């Protein structure tokens, strides 16, 4: 019996190591590629030991490799993520509170909000292209942010609902007895309690915006281009500089990994919007 248990435990540990290698090797490889001298990039079998160089990062960040203004695009991504998150929180948080406070019409509201989550983004890009043009918002940070906020709303509402639902009913009613309206109760009593939720919702929304590709591809040109859109121009070249592709990839994913580190458990809950409580 003990030897059988030992064997099972060894097999499980081997499985876990396998999962770790499968998860991390691709990212480790991206890092290696970004540090590899151009002369060794195409070596086969692939080289794991070489004299690292930061030339690719230098080319990308300071030399505008392939005529791409990486730093400007990186900041565009940051601006869009910040602005769209602000809009989504401003609109989504009161909505989530309302849905928890007045559950009578909750089902309809949740249906409307969560159905946005299942809509493939590509279906709205054609009308949006011309709506943005008419509003003089094409290729602007504001224009893209307005749309990223739409995509973030279902997740913000879903994350916040859980936080509001965890507040005891008496507390909400006590706030109202004092003569404050719903908005005042939300602002003065509720928001301070759900602050961790606000942080989670904000990080989640920023992550979505940072990673979004199809809408940014269609709605932005030179001025408001974001990192994912800019990154694809690197592989459209006749000769692909893989070291620069990798360096760009590393620069693009650093913020996402930081977001993830703070999100951890809320990540899965947020993504399960619409299905699992």
């Amino acid at each position, binding site marked *: 019996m003990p030897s059988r248990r030992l064997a099972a435990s060894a097999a499980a540990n081997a499985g876990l190591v396998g999962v770790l290698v499968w998860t991390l090797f691709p990212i480790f490889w991206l890092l290696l590629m970004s540090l590899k001298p151009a002369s060794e990039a195409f070596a086969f079998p692939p080289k794991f030991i070489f004299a690292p160089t930061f030339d690719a990062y230098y080319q990308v960040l300071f030399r505008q490799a392939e005529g791409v203004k990486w730093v400007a695009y990186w900041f565009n991504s940051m601006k869009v993520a910040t602005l769209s998150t602000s809009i989504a929180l401003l609109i989504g948080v009161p909505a989530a509170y309302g849905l928890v406070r007045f559950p009578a019409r909750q089902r309809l509201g949740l249906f409307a909000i969560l159905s946005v989550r299942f809509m493939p983004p590509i279906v709205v890009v054609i009308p949006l292209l011309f709506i943005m043009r008419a509003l003089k918002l094409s290729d602007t940070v504001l224009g893209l942010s307005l749309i990223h906020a739409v995509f973030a709303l279902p997740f913000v509402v879903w994350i916040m609902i859980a936080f509001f639902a965890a507040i005891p009913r008496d507390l909400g009613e006590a706030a109202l007895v004092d003569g404050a309206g719903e908005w005042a109760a939300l602002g003065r009593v509720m928001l301070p309690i759900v602050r961790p939720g606000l942080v989670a919702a904000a990080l989640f929304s920023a992550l979505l915006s940072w990673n979004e*590709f199809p809408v940014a591809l269609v709605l932005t040109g030179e001025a408001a281009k974001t990192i994912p859109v800019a990154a694809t121009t690197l592989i459209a070249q006749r000769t692909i500089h893989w070291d620069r592709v990798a360096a760009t990839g590393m620069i693009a994913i650093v913020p996402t990994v930081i977001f993830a580190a703070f999100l951890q458990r809320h990540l899965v809950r947020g993504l399960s919007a619409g299905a699992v409580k």
Partner: protein
Amino acid sequence: MGLALPINVYLAAWTLAPLLYLLYLSLTNWKVPNPRRFIWFGNYIEALGDPLFRHSVRVTFSYAFGVAALEVAIGLFVALLLHRRGWLSTVTRSLFVVPMVLTPVVTAMMWRALLNPSFGPMNWVLGLVGFGPYEWHASPDTVWASLVMIDVWQWLPFPTLLILSGLMSLPDEPYEASQVDGASWSQQLRHLTLPMLRPIMVAAFFLRFLDALKVFDTVFVLTRGGPGTMTEVLSFHIYRFGLGEFFRLGYGSALSVLVVLMTGVLAFTVLRSLLKEPITHA
């Protein structure tokens, strides 16, 4: 009152209005720079009769079904591994989420390098154990395997962690009782764990399925719908005909409306079965 007013106005302006405009455009033959003329259901008739569109619907749904089923099945297995106590599973649990947050475009570019037939490490590793070399996304034989593999790499953590949270909230009593009856680990798995995890596995499946229907970024970066039109999934089909290559805005709009209808019906059905009781204050 009025807590929901901002969101109603916002979604009306930025979702409902664009969809109505989309509906209108879908009834025209607009193609930049030509003038636009109302043609009723001409685009729809063309789309429904187009073998490429039907191919696109078929491959998109098969792809979504395939990755969702695969990720839930492997996810169950990995969740059982992660459910064990020990530092190795704790470490794995926290690092396992990383692929899910990476920018999908970057993930696709990274895999394009990993799978590169001439210098990619994937062929090298497989070569060591006597497989390959493969052409991966460049060959009709392996292009779907490549796209599915990337999706599994990026999204396996999601169903896995959902199932893991289900595992951790299972009650102890049935296990204790069955232990007394001398049930083995595999019997417990079959008769206790799996039935109790069913709802969460079904939910994970449908979430992955509906999200995978949106597939665009990996196709854009790796295959551009090729070889030929083999991997021309719906999102890419809309992009190519409506904007990218042909700029047939009216026709692309009609394709979009059809996709909205298909995913809308599915999403509605899923939401209706999952959102049962209201969520309210504790």
